[in-house]
Protein backbone atom coordinates (compact mmCIF):
# COMPACT_ATOMS: atom_id res chain seq x y z
CA UNK A 1 0.00 0.00 0.00
CA UNK A 2 1.41 3.33 -0.98
CA UNK A 3 -1.45 5.39 0.37
CA UNK A 4 -0.50 8.37 2.46
CA UNK A 5 -1.69 8.37 6.01
CA UNK A 6 -2.99 11.90 5.61
CA UNK A 7 -5.16 10.98 2.67
CA UNK A 8 -6.59 8.05 4.55
CA UNK A 9 -7.40 10.12 7.60
CA UNK A 10 -9.05 12.77 5.45
CA UNK A 11 -11.11 10.23 3.61
CA UNK A 12 -12.21 8.61 6.84
CA UNK A 13 -13.22 11.92 8.37
CA UNK A 14 -15.17 12.88 5.32
CA UNK A 15 -16.95 9.56 5.13
CA UNK A 16 -17.67 9.43 8.82
CA UNK A 17 -19.34 12.81 8.74
CA UNK A 18 -21.52 11.66 5.92
CA UNK A 19 -23.16 8.68 7.49
CA UNK A 20 -25.15 10.83 9.88
CA UNK A 21 -26.19 13.16 7.14
CA UNK A 22 -27.82 10.60 4.93
CA UNK A 23 -31.08 10.94 6.75
CA UNK A 24 -31.10 14.72 6.63
CA UNK A 25 -31.53 15.06 2.90
CA UNK A 26 -34.56 17.32 2.55
CA UNK A 27 -37.83 15.60 1.89
CA UNK A 28 -38.75 17.96 -0.91
CA UNK A 29 -35.99 16.50 -3.01
CA UNK A 30 -37.68 13.13 -3.24
CA UNK A 31 -41.26 14.21 -3.61
CA UNK A 32 -42.00 12.09 -6.66
CA UNK A 33 -40.03 9.05 -5.71
CA UNK A 34 -39.43 6.52 -3.00
CA UNK A 35 -38.04 8.87 -0.43
CA UNK A 36 -37.67 6.19 2.21
CA UNK A 37 -35.66 3.91 -0.02
CA UNK A 38 -33.32 6.58 -1.35
CA UNK A 39 -32.87 8.22 2.03
CA UNK A 40 -32.32 5.05 4.04
CA UNK A 41 -28.86 4.46 5.45
CA UNK A 42 -29.37 0.72 5.73
CA UNK A 43 -29.45 -1.60 2.74
CA UNK A 44 -32.02 -4.02 4.14
CA UNK A 45 -34.34 -1.16 5.04
CA UNK A 46 -33.85 0.49 1.66
CA UNK A 47 -34.79 -2.76 -0.08
CA UNK A 48 -37.79 -3.15 2.17
CA UNK A 49 -38.91 0.40 1.39
CA UNK A 50 -38.42 0.01 -2.34
CA UNK A 51 -39.75 -3.50 -2.90
CA UNK A 52 -41.58 -4.38 0.31
CA UNK A 53 -39.89 -7.79 0.06
CA UNK A 54 -36.51 -9.45 0.09
CA UNK A 55 -34.89 -10.65 -3.10
CA UNK A 56 -33.76 -14.24 -3.55
CA UNK A 57 -30.22 -15.04 -4.67
CA UNK A 58 -30.09 -15.89 -8.34
CA UNK A 59 -27.26 -17.10 -10.57
CA UNK A 60 -29.04 -15.66 -13.62
CA UNK A 61 -27.97 -12.08 -13.04
CA UNK A 62 -24.65 -10.94 -14.40
CA UNK A 63 -23.15 -8.18 -12.31
CA UNK A 64 -20.00 -6.77 -13.77
CA UNK A 65 -17.89 -4.60 -11.52
CA UNK A 66 -14.16 -4.41 -10.88
CA UNK A 67 -12.83 -6.49 -7.99
CA UNK A 68 -10.52 -3.63 -7.15
CA UNK A 69 -11.50 -0.05 -7.88
CA UNK A 70 -8.67 2.41 -7.56
CA UNK A 71 -11.01 5.33 -7.54
CA UNK A 72 -14.24 4.92 -5.60
CA UNK A 73 -15.68 8.02 -7.26
CA UNK A 74 -16.07 6.25 -10.59
CA UNK A 75 -16.81 2.54 -10.46
CA UNK A 76 -18.18 1.10 -13.70
CA UNK A 77 -21.01 -1.34 -13.15
CA UNK A 78 -22.99 -3.38 -15.66
CA UNK A 79 -26.03 -5.43 -14.75
CA UNK A 80 -27.63 -7.80 -17.21
CA UNK A 81 -29.89 -10.81 -17.15
CA UNK A 82 -31.49 -13.23 -19.57
CA UNK A 83 -34.69 -13.35 -17.52
CA UNK A 84 -37.92 -12.44 -19.23
CA UNK A 85 -40.43 -9.78 -18.22
CA UNK A 86 -37.84 -7.74 -16.39
CA UNK A 87 -39.43 -4.68 -14.82
CA UNK A 88 -36.57 -2.99 -13.06
CA UNK A 89 -32.90 -3.23 -12.21
CA UNK A 90 -31.64 -1.65 -9.01
CA UNK A 91 -28.14 -1.23 -7.67
CA UNK A 92 -27.15 -1.08 -4.01
CA UNK A 93 -23.82 -0.50 -2.28
CA UNK A 94 -24.05 -1.80 1.27
CA UNK A 95 -21.59 0.53 2.99
CA UNK A 96 -22.48 3.77 1.25
CA UNK A 97 -24.15 6.50 3.33
CA UNK A 98 -27.31 5.78 1.35
CA UNK A 99 -27.04 2.26 -0.10
CA UNK A 100 -29.60 2.62 -2.89
CA UNK A 101 -27.66 3.93 -5.87
CA UNK A 102 -30.25 3.84 -8.61
CA UNK A 103 -33.34 2.11 -9.82
CA UNK A 104 -33.72 1.66 -13.57
CA UNK A 105 -37.06 0.82 -15.16
CA UNK A 106 -36.92 -1.58 -18.04
CA UNK A 107 -39.93 -1.06 -20.33
CA UNK A 108 -41.00 -3.85 -22.69
CA UNK A 109 -38.70 -3.86 -25.69
CA UNK A 110 -35.68 -2.64 -23.80
CA UNK A 111 -32.95 -5.16 -23.06
CA UNK A 112 -32.36 -6.06 -19.45
CA UNK A 113 -28.87 -4.69 -19.54
CA UNK A 114 -27.81 -1.44 -18.00
CA UNK A 115 -24.38 0.05 -17.58
CA UNK A 116 -23.54 3.03 -15.43
CA UNK A 117 -20.88 4.42 -13.14
CA UNK A 118 -21.29 4.66 -9.42
CA UNK A 119 -19.61 6.07 -6.34
CA UNK A 120 -18.38 3.93 -3.49
CA UNK A 121 -17.31 5.37 -0.16
CA UNK A 122 -15.19 2.37 0.72
CA UNK A 123 -14.72 -1.33 0.08
CA UNK A 124 -18.17 -2.81 0.03
CA UNK A 125 -20.59 -5.24 -1.52
CA UNK A 126 -22.44 -4.21 -4.65
CA UNK A 127 -25.84 -5.82 -4.98
CA UNK A 128 -27.92 -5.88 -8.15
CA UNK A 129 -31.61 -6.56 -7.75
CA UNK A 130 -33.72 -7.56 -10.71
CA UNK A 131 -37.49 -7.48 -10.60
CA UNK A 132 -38.92 -9.91 -13.12
CA UNK A 133 -42.44 -11.30 -13.32
CA UNK A 134 -43.16 -9.54 -10.05
CA UNK A 135 -40.44 -11.51 -8.27
CA UNK A 136 -37.17 -10.24 -6.90
CA UNK A 137 -33.76 -11.70 -7.57
CA UNK A 138 -30.37 -10.48 -6.55
CA UNK A 139 -26.70 -11.12 -6.91
CA UNK A 140 -23.83 -9.49 -5.09
CA UNK A 141 -20.10 -9.11 -5.30
CA UNK A 142 -17.45 -7.30 -3.36
CA UNK A 143 -15.41 -4.47 -4.77
CA UNK A 144 -12.32 -3.26 -2.97
CA UNK A 145 -11.88 0.47 -3.03
CA UNK A 146 -8.45 1.96 -2.53
CA UNK A 147 -9.50 5.61 -2.60
CA UNK A 148 -13.00 6.37 -1.39
CA UNK A 149 -15.37 8.34 -3.57
CA UNK A 150 -17.06 10.19 -0.81
CA UNK A 151 -14.63 12.87 0.18
CA UNK A 152 -14.26 14.32 -3.32
Amino acid sequence: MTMHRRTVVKAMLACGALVGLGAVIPGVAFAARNKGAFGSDDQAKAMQALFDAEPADSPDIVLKAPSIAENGAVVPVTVSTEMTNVESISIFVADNPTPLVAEFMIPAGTEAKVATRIRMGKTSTITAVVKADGKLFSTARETKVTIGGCGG
Partner: protein
Amino acid sequence: MAGIFKVKAKAKGGVTKVKMLAKHVMETGQRKDKKTGDIIPAKFIQELTVQHAGNTVFSGQLGTAVSKNPYFSFTFAGGAKGDELSISWAENTGTSATETAKIK
Protein backbone atom coordinates in the same frame (compact mmCIF):
# COMPACT_ATOMS: atom_id res chain seq x y z
CA MET B 1 -30.21 25.96 -22.05
CA ALA B 2 -27.83 23.84 -23.91
CA GLY B 3 -28.13 20.15 -23.33
CA ILE B 4 -25.98 18.45 -20.77
CA PHE B 5 -26.24 15.02 -22.38
CA LYS B 6 -23.87 13.73 -24.98
CA VAL B 7 -25.61 10.86 -26.71
CA LYS B 8 -24.40 8.18 -29.05
CA ALA B 9 -27.29 6.16 -30.37
CA LYS B 10 -26.86 3.62 -33.12
CA ALA B 11 -29.60 1.65 -34.82
CA LYS B 12 -28.57 -1.72 -36.15
CA GLY B 13 -30.45 -4.94 -36.80
CA GLY B 14 -33.73 -3.69 -35.36
CA VAL B 15 -32.30 -2.52 -32.07
CA THR B 16 -30.85 0.76 -30.99
CA LYS B 17 -27.93 0.92 -28.66
CA VAL B 18 -27.72 4.09 -26.65
CA LYS B 19 -24.78 5.42 -24.72
CA MET B 20 -25.22 8.66 -22.92
CA LEU B 21 -22.96 10.81 -20.82
CA ALA B 22 -24.14 13.83 -18.89
CA LYS B 23 -22.01 16.71 -17.84
CA HIS B 24 -23.19 17.12 -14.28
CA VAL B 25 -21.48 17.59 -10.95
CA MET B 26 -23.81 15.17 -9.07
CA GLU B 27 -23.12 16.92 -5.79
CA THR B 28 -24.04 14.56 -2.98
CA GLY B 29 -24.78 17.10 -0.28
CA GLN B 30 -22.25 15.31 1.87
CA ARG B 31 -19.11 17.09 0.86
CA LYS B 32 -17.71 20.05 2.73
CA ASP B 33 -16.29 23.17 1.22
CA LYS B 34 -12.56 22.86 1.90
CA LYS B 35 -12.19 26.55 2.79
CA THR B 36 -15.29 27.35 4.79
CA GLY B 37 -16.17 23.92 6.14
CA ASP B 38 -19.78 24.41 5.07
CA ILE B 39 -21.68 21.53 3.56
CA ILE B 40 -22.06 21.90 -0.19
CA PRO B 41 -25.78 21.48 -0.90
CA ALA B 42 -26.90 18.43 -2.83
CA LYS B 43 -27.42 18.92 -6.54
CA PHE B 44 -27.89 15.78 -8.56
CA ILE B 45 -30.03 14.34 -11.31
CA GLN B 46 -32.69 12.27 -9.62
CA GLU B 47 -34.91 11.37 -12.53
CA LEU B 48 -34.14 10.42 -16.07
CA THR B 49 -36.44 9.35 -18.87
CA VAL B 50 -35.62 8.56 -22.48
CA GLN B 51 -38.40 8.41 -25.02
CA HIS B 52 -38.52 7.27 -28.61
CA ALA B 53 -41.57 8.01 -30.77
CA GLY B 54 -43.64 8.77 -27.69
CA ASN B 55 -42.72 5.56 -25.86
CA THR B 56 -40.50 5.46 -22.84
CA VAL B 57 -37.57 3.20 -23.64
CA PHE B 58 -35.56 3.80 -20.50
CA SER B 59 -36.04 5.53 -17.20
CA GLY B 60 -34.36 5.66 -13.87
CA GLN B 61 -34.48 7.05 -10.38
CA LEU B 62 -31.00 8.05 -9.35
CA GLY B 63 -29.44 8.50 -5.96
CA THR B 64 -26.43 10.52 -4.94
CA ALA B 65 -24.11 7.55 -5.41
CA VAL B 66 -24.26 7.79 -9.17
CA SER B 67 -20.88 9.13 -10.20
CA LYS B 68 -20.09 12.63 -11.34
CA ASN B 69 -20.75 13.09 -15.06
CA PRO B 70 -23.10 10.09 -15.06
CA TYR B 71 -22.94 7.51 -17.79
CA PHE B 72 -25.71 5.17 -18.87
CA SER B 73 -26.01 2.65 -21.61
CA PHE B 74 -28.96 0.54 -22.68
CA THR B 75 -30.43 -1.09 -25.77
CA PHE B 76 -34.02 -1.03 -26.99
CA ALA B 77 -35.92 -2.68 -29.80
CA GLY B 78 -36.86 -0.42 -32.70
CA GLY B 79 -35.48 2.91 -33.71
CA ALA B 80 -34.04 3.88 -37.05
CA LYS B 81 -31.36 6.14 -38.34
CA GLY B 82 -32.51 9.74 -38.16
CA ASP B 83 -35.11 9.15 -35.44
CA GLU B 84 -35.09 11.41 -32.48
CA LEU B 85 -34.67 10.46 -28.84
CA SER B 86 -36.11 12.75 -26.25
CA ILE B 87 -34.26 12.86 -22.95
CA SER B 88 -35.89 14.40 -19.90
CA TRP B 89 -34.15 14.85 -16.61
CA ALA B 90 -34.91 16.46 -13.29
CA GLU B 91 -32.60 17.56 -10.53
CA ASN B 92 -33.35 17.38 -6.85
CA THR B 93 -33.22 21.19 -6.90
CA GLY B 94 -36.29 21.34 -9.12
CA THR B 95 -34.39 22.15 -12.29
CA SER B 96 -35.47 20.02 -15.20
CA ALA B 97 -35.04 19.97 -18.95
CA THR B 98 -35.77 17.98 -22.04
CA GLU B 99 -33.31 17.62 -24.85
CA THR B 100 -33.17 15.62 -28.04
CA ALA B 101 -30.60 13.50 -29.78
CA LYS B 102 -30.60 11.82 -33.18
CA ILE B 103 -30.10 8.13 -33.77
CA LYS B 104 -27.26 7.40 -36.17
